[in-house]
């Protein structure tokens, strides 16, 4: 291949990659701005625009894939601009198209397109119709930004889009208390774990003078080589694992996931059955070279993944509503996938992610048909399918079984533990601080400063 061809290919890929981002972003503007001005578009126009945006993104990704295939899937870095640079330190906006990111964009944009087609009918005449599609395109844009990110800064930006759209869709029915509570719960978990990614960014900047992945590792995915020293690699890897725990609902940050099923069914399907739940896995796959250089983080990941899978499998087996049951089923697989990544596998978890996402989103989209499906199944099998759902847990000895059942019904005491070991101490600390402040103010001559009680930590949710 000549220099000229390579240069042309580079330009083509650069344009296409920009398109993958620009298409959903443009849709976002096209439906968001009229809504902002108080004149939301008609339902049909909205869904058509969103559909067109995702189609354009999908086609651009397919073409990129073809262009990349012509070059043997070597990574193509697209430089979009520099935020600032000081000496040899720079914060750049970079995207990368390689054998991981581009197929993943095809997959995620395709799913977004399907969910858009589904939701256009599902949300017909719903007061929050436009809001849903704004959040869906925001999610699509964030997802592509995160997947195509060539630097940890861009990755973080995409990651945050995901978080905020997820939160707002959980709280979609904001007139209901439960929905808002569940959204808040997810949001707090996200913010806590986002710190991992943020600090990892700071560490990377500090270590290599930029957030670019090129300086962190080099080579074709999945065989890239880490370029930083093992200590830095370990710190970054641990921080990335921490970040992944929140979005992928791993123990001990998994309690928000079953509660997150408060939004409309299609958003539950794409977020918690398919894409958002695997965002953590994607970030770890993206930075797999760092994990390779830090085996301790890998083993930690395996332990957490297996722990989560066991926890979710047991807790899931006592759930009596379909969406909670599917949430725990997703959690089980997310745990296994993280464990696979921790074990050093690369292609297996990627296939697992895609495959699981497709199956689970179909199951969630279909969950309101459960009664219909069950009748058909009973007719086909000649009896209620209950007997088919044999669980090994039924074989446990009575006493032990009862204990485990209670633990499972209490969702592994996760909520109560968080309550006791996180919320209470934090509240106590805050109250202590407030009391100290009040005393100080009084000491300084402040008149009637009245302390307010805030001991409201009884809520289980």
């Amino acid at each position, binding site marked *: 291949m000549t220099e000229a061809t390579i240069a042309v290919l580079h330009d083509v890929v650069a344009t296409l990659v920009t398109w993958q981002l620009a298409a959903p972003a443009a849709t976002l503007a096209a439906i968001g701005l009229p809504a902002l001005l108080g004149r939301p578009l008609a339902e049909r126009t909205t869904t058509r625009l969103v559909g067109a945006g995702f189609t354009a993104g999908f086609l651009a990704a397919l073409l990129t894939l073809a262009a990349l295939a012509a070059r043997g899937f070597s990574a193509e870095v697209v430089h979009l601009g520099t935020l600032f640079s000081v000496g040899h330190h720079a914060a750049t906006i970079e995207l990368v198209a390689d054998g991981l990111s581009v197929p993943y964009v095809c997959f995620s944009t395709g799913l977004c397109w*399907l969910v858009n087609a589904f939701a256009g009918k599902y949300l017909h005449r719903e007061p929050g119709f436009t809001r849903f599609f704004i959040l869906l395109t925001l999610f699509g844009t964030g997802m592509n930004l995160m997947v195509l990110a060539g630097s940890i800064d861009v990755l973080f930006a995409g990651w945050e889009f995901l978080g905020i759209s997820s939160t707002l869709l959980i709280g979609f029915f904001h007139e209901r208390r439960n929905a808002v509570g569940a959204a808040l719960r997810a949001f707090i978990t996200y913010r806590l774990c986002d710190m991992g990614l943020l600090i990892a960014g700071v560490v990377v900047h500090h270590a290599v003078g930029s957030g670019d992945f090129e300086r962190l590792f080099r080579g074709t995915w999945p065989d890239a080589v880490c370029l930083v020293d093992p200590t830095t690699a370990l710190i970054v890897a641990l921080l990335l694992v921490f970040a992944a725990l929140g979005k992928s609902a791993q123990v001990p940050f998994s309690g928000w996931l079953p509660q997150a099923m408060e939004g409309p069914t299609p958003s539950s399907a794409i977020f918690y059955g398919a894409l958002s739940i695997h965002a953590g896995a994607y970030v770890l796959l993206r930075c797999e070279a760092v994990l390779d250089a830090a085996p301790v983080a890998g083993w930690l990941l395996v332990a957490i993944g297996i722990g989560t899978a066991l926890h979710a499998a047991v807790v899931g087996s006592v759930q009596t509503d379909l969406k909670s049951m599917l949430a725990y089923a997703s959690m089980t697989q997310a745990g296994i996938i993280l464990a696979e990544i921790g074990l050093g596998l690369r292609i297996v978890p990627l296939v697992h992610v*895609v*495959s699981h996402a497709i199956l689970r989103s179909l199951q969630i989209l279909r969950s309101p048909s459960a009664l219909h499906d069950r009748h058909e199944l009973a007719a086909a099998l000649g009896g209620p399918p209950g007997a088919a759902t044999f669980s090994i847990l039924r074989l446990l000895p009575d006493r032990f079984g009862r204990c485990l059942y209670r633990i499972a019904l209490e969702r592994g005491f996760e909520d109560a533990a968080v309550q006791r070991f996180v919320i209470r101490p934090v509240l106590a600390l805050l109250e202590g601080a407030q009391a100290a402040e009040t005393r100080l103010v009084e000491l300084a001559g402040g008149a009637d400063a009245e302390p307010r009680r805030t001991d409201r930590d009884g809520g289980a949710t």
Partner: protein
Amino acid sequence: MHPDDDQLAQMIASAARLLPPQGPIDAFVAQNTLQGFEDLPFDEALVRAARLHGAQPFLPESFYRGELERGRIQASDLDAVLTADLGDRPGLALAGGRIRLRDLQRTLLIHGVRHESDAAVRWTLTENAVLDGDDAGSDLWHACVEASSRSRPSVVHVRPPLRHRDLILALDPTLDTDALVHPLLIRMTAAYLDQGVASWPMPDRQQGLLAAVAGLYSGRIGPLPPWCAGLPDRLHGIHSHGEPDREAYEVIRAELAALGVPATSWPEFIPLTLVALRGWAGMIRQFAERPDRAPVEAVPARLADFLALRLVLDRLAVEYAARCLNFRGPPTSDAAAAPLAAFCTELRDRHPPRRGAGSLARAFLLLQVARLTGLSAADIRALDDNELLELELSIAAFDSIARRRIFHLAYERRHGIGVLDGLAAQASLPARSPGGRPRVQAVFCIDDRCESFRRHLEEFAPDIDTFGTAGFFAVPMYYRGIDDWHAIPLCPLVVRPQHTVTEAPASESLASHRLRQAVRRSLGWFRGSMATGSRTLFRGGLLTSIGGAVAAVPLVARVAFPRITSLVTGGAAEYARSRVRTSLDLRRQGDALLPNGTQRGFDAAEMAAIVRRLLEDIGLMTSFARLVAVIGHGSTSLNNPHESAYDCGACGGGRGGPNARAFALMANDPDVRARLAAEGLVIPADTVFLGGMQDTCTSRVTWYDVDRLPGSHRGDFDTFRVDCETAGGLDAQERCRRFYSVPLDVSPAEALRRVQERAGDLAQVRPEYGHASTAVCIVGRRERTRGLFLDRRAFLVSYDPTTDGDLAILERTLAAVGPVSSGISLCYLFSRLDPLVYGAGTKLPHNITGLIGVMDGHASDLRTGLPLQGVEIHEPVRLLMVIDATTEAIRAVLERLPTVRTLVTNRWVRLAAWDPATGSLATYEPAPAGDRFVPYAPEQAVLPVAASSADWFRGHRGHLPLARIERGLQIERPVASEGHR
């Protein structure tokens, strides 16, 4: 002295009646949501129930005001309702004879006044300076201010709420004890009632809810949330012994005492406690009362268990709240027995009082009333204290609920006038002259959705006569089709069938039957193990990582190409099904009872009785056509937990096809015909009965036992089948005008495609609108309503008063039709009046739980009633029942039917008599002096005329008035091309 077990049982039983009557969702039967209030007059029941459930008794005032503006409610309606409502007080003079009460109320209704707070009025005055200056308006305002300042703003003494939760919430809005209790209680109850979602069922369910939970939660494992840390101690020692209820009663007594509820308040406190989570409590009650309707496993649920558990948790939460509010009990020894009694007393004392409106607010109200009623400043100043007080009280007494009640009655009145005017006009016009032997007679269900199908059939093929009767066709049976794994009851809820009928493959198609079974079984096994396996740890890991991508095919197909997908899958299934010829084992074989306590099949005498009964009911005793089609109905849709709500109510939420098929077989049976002939009911030898089923979602009709038709009738059937296909397209077109996502100018063929796509589309939350516009029930001869456009809003029950000398037929017809049709109408009415409390809310966050119901999201009360998407086009009016009989006959029959009479006298249905001879109408009016029929005087004597139904409905989305459709009255068959339009 605490109530004993019997008294407690009594209290719980009467509380149970107030819970939603809905059973497990896989057999949804629409019933009156407020069944427990049926012994009260309708409007009083609405207000009482609203208070109990925290619901809205009527739609918001803005809705009615909008209807007033667009003329759906007219001023004359308000006048009529006010006159009737005020009875002998219409002229009651207020303000020293300057205004009459009726005029005041009328003014308040038509113009409306704004209720503002003191602060808002003051702000308006200072900011806008509107009332400055010295004009007449300002003078009036000053007069009003002077008047209102003559009395002090009132303090309204309210009775503090009974439940601790409400008392606590009033003091501290952030402290909701129900928000603590409910997630845990829901989890426990859902686990207990689960019918097979969880792969690991709750242990010890056979011992009852209380004992099962006690067994689980009395151990000390793991941390519990702070509020329920005392739970293990409380539950320890509770276990079931011989008399399960006794343990629960003990707990209830102990907890109520600990909560400090005086025994005199228990009868009121218990319903309030149960209603706080009414969906789940109601489901417990359903399992207790109708274990035979449990979808899979009838767990021994008892409401006493649920109440006991709930009270235990309530008490713990209240104790926690007392700690949060820094309450320390008084140091008396008495309080040690019931530490919360003192807390409760203190809560009641601290319950915030409610202040009446301030003087500026009252002045503003007075100003508006004065302007609207023409009172001048001098008039206001001339009022003495008593007159002023009376005026203000009259305004206050006509509050939002009172106004909405009048509005609602006026809203219903206008609907009634529209229908009755149409009927009266129709009766005065010439009916269709009988045209010899009809070509086909078709018997449908009374369902309002069949009205349009029948009308289109009659328009397209005027030589066809149609009839309506309860869709189980007088054949109550347990039925097991070749695809069913067990027999299900197909008859109204109140009937317990005595016979079981099985469908069996015919001997010549045994081979294809076995092949089909095998294919279905392996496909089912594959799907089932994918679904369950993907949720487990090991199998799930393998399945999702290797096989998951296979799901891309159904995912893309179902979402992107719903119509083609359902055509392909449905077509394949239908083809396979059509390869298997089946027959019904209808005839009694041997006298041994089946395990479910029923006979296998019917004997000839029973069959003859059934056939006779149905033919008598619909008044078809002579002049039989060559072909008599009996057509049941059902509905198929995907992604719809409420699917069975759209099936046949007369089949207990099942599908009426098998009943139709069984009836046709019975009526064709030579033995049966011989017996009937001996009794004087002669069915000509060339009359053949044929069964069918109409799918109300896809507008298609399928036929049974066509291959058994005699060759001589083949031609009749083929023509009739085409007629039904055409009628199906027109019916689909009429249904499509209601769907906002379908253009108004859709053709019948396109409409058929649309409705069929909706039935098979995963994303479609409105596969059909069901009974969503139902408003009328007409019991009478079809000749009288034929050619009348009833807009799919009427149940049509065939009844011929001329053949019913002793009123036995009317009696049995009303006994069945009255409760069923009023139940459907009231279920829709309440789901529309308050979609959040009585209805199931929007479908979008629904989450199927335990295969018994739906929750919103992950932990809410079970949502009962109908979803918002199913009632959004419903006009909430009570059913208007018009009976083709004399007023004397109706009175006589009502005397014999106490349940129906209660519904009528308490106005849960509106009733009118349509005189069979004169065609004059009389409405049933309740009056203090005694209910009576009042002759109805039509407002409009003219009935709009249209050539065909399509001409009348084309281009309209909303409800349409009655119209005379000329084509339905013709005798000659119209030219085919015209009908196919």
